[in-house]
């Protein structure tokens, strides 16, 4: 439905409830006259707007005309000074001179927000703005604007741009393949000569009438159109819609990480009893017992430590059994305490570990796989004395909690926190000597590589021109240069024979 550009307000002169007056007819007349005056006011406003637009346009044309007149005058003077005898006419000069190319300026962004007429813009501004979803943008992991998921004005342009760039890449790949094939078979000769194009086919098609011509153009030609039997024109672009790759989704990276974290959860608690056994035989049996007890008790401890984010309470109980008994109570309290509830974690942690009551906090013996426990001993020491560990853990909450997790748990908790904070420096994690650590480090590097590649691609795209004209021209150039190169190579083969 088209929008009215200029709407004269008020629309209805006398549709109002009358105040209770004695002479109603006079009252109506006065109200109507007042509305007429308002209408005249809005009419004059719109008239001023109309004349203003026409005036600006005429002004631009006037300036162009004046500059043109100057150029014509200068040219006139120059032409009279021309002398045909002086003119150098050399064959080399004709060939070496650059051919004349007129500067064709293509109008772009015609229907942009800037070119909207002011009255229509005012109509738009009377509407509600979209909700301020961009306030949630800093909390997103993939760096996209949150409002783009609600309403994205550049969606279709981005779609088209992706498709065009993909097509140019495909065409270039085909070109390379063709070139390789031709290079591989230089002596193949003319296996597929060009079809002799005659007009006969075209006349046959047009025999029944222009309307029934079904153009069998390639779907890659731009823009493709189909003339259906009933004369309506459709487009073939939907065919390529399926081939179009969806907008770059970095969401593909985030879903695997939670599943990865959950997959890692069940095996390690069972496996970790071995290193504990290897180190302390006395506690080995107890360690085995603890590992068997912890897995069923793993889900229940999650709610009491609900103040901490998801993976952390889930990982609090598995770190408990593997390290030697004195260490059990101390690692879980620092991470939950690091998340702002210093008083509450110590009381919930004892009930969550019913099989391990009354563990004092002696100086922590370092477990075998952990390496950077140097950061841990001070906080646990302060723990039993203070009971409120906010100062050491809270300042860098994601930093030290992954180390205690990794230290207490081997490499179990290491992957999920680094995967969730993809941009955190990897140097904060301890160097690993476990068998799984190689896989994990490889995965980490892989993720890092992917992210860097994505950034590089994005930067490349942003640097190059973002208009319809440049993208289209590039694509068409690639497409037509492809056919030209093929034909030129074909000619060279002929001469080489």
């Amino acid at each position, binding site marked *: 439905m088209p929008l009215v550009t200029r709407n004269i307000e008020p629309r209805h*002169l006398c549709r109002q409830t009358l105040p209770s007056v004695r002479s109603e*007819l006079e009252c109506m007349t006065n109200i109507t*006259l007042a509305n007429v005056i308002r209408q005249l006011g809005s009419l004059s406003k719109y008239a001023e707007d*109309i004349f203003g637009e*026409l005036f600006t346009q005429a002004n631009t044309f006037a300036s162009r005309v004046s500059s043109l007149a100057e150029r014509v005058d200068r*040219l006139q003077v*120059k032409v009279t000074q021309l002398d045909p005898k002086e003119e150098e006419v050399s064959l080399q000069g004709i060939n*070496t001179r650059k051919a004349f190319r007129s500067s064709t300026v293509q109008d772009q962004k015609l229907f942009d927000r800037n070119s909207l007429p002011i009255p229509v813009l005012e109509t738009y501004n009377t509407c509600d703005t979209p909700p301020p979803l961009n306030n949630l943008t800093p909390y997103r992991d993939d760096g996209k604007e949150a409002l783009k998921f609600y309403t994205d004005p550049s969606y279709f342009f981005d779609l088209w741009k992706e498709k065009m760039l993909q097509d140019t890449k495909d065409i270039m790949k085909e070109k390379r393949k063709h070139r390789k094939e031709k290079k591989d078979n230089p002596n193949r000769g003319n296996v597929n000569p060009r079809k002799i194009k005659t007009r006969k086919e075209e006349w046959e098609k047009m025999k029944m009438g222009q309307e029934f011509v079904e153009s069998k153009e390639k779907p890659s030609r731009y823009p493709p159109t189909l003339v259906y039997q009933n004369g309506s024109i459709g487009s073939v672009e939907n065919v390529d819609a399926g081939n179009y790759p969806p907008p770059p989704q970095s969401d593909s990276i985030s879903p695997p990480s939670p599943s990865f974290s959950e997959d890692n959860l069940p095996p390690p608690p069972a496996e970790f009893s071995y290193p504990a056994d290897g180190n302390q035989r006395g506690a080995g049996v107890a360690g085995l017992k603890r590992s068997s007890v912890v897995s069923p008790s793993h889900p229940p401890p999650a709610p009491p430590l609900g103040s901490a984010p998801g993976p952390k309470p889930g990982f609090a109980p598995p770190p408990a059994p593997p390290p030697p008994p004195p260490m059990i109570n101390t690692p879980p309290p620092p991470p939950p305490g690091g998340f702002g509830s210093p008083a509450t974690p110590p009381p919930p942690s004892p009930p969550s570990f019913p099989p391990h009551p009354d563990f004092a906090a002696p100086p922590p013996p370092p477990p075998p796989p952990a390496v950077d426990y140097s950061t841990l001993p001070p906080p646990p020491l302060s723990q039993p004395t203070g009971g409120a560990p906010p100062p050491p853990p809270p300042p860098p909450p994601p930093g030290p909690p992954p180390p205690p997790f990794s230290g207490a748990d081997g490499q179990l908790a290491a992957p999920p926190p680094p995967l969730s904070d993809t941009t955190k420096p990897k140097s904060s994690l301890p160097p690993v000597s476990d068998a799984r650590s190689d896989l994990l480090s490889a995965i980490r590097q892989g993720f890092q590589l992917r992210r860097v590649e994505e950034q590089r691609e994005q930067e490349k795209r942003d640097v190059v021109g973002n208009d319809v004209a440049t993208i289209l021209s590039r694509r068409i150039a690639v497409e037509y240069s492809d056919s030209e190169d093929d034909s030129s190579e074909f000619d060279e083969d002929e001469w080489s024979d």
Partner: protein
Amino acid sequence: MAGQEDPVQQEIHQDWANREYIEVITSSIKKTANFLNSFDMSCRSRLATINEKLTALERRIEYIQTRVTKGETLT
């Protein structure tokens, strides 16, 4: 009877006169609005033709300038 209806009749007469007056005003408002719209359209079409002619002239002048200026041999 005439005495009873006079003030009412007068009022109704006056009301009809007022309505005619208002009708004249509103119809002239509509005529003005129509005139403005048609003036706007015709002006735009004329300005567009001027624009076309101007661009054609500019291209011709550019061509003539490159033809006439000597010393523009490039490599």
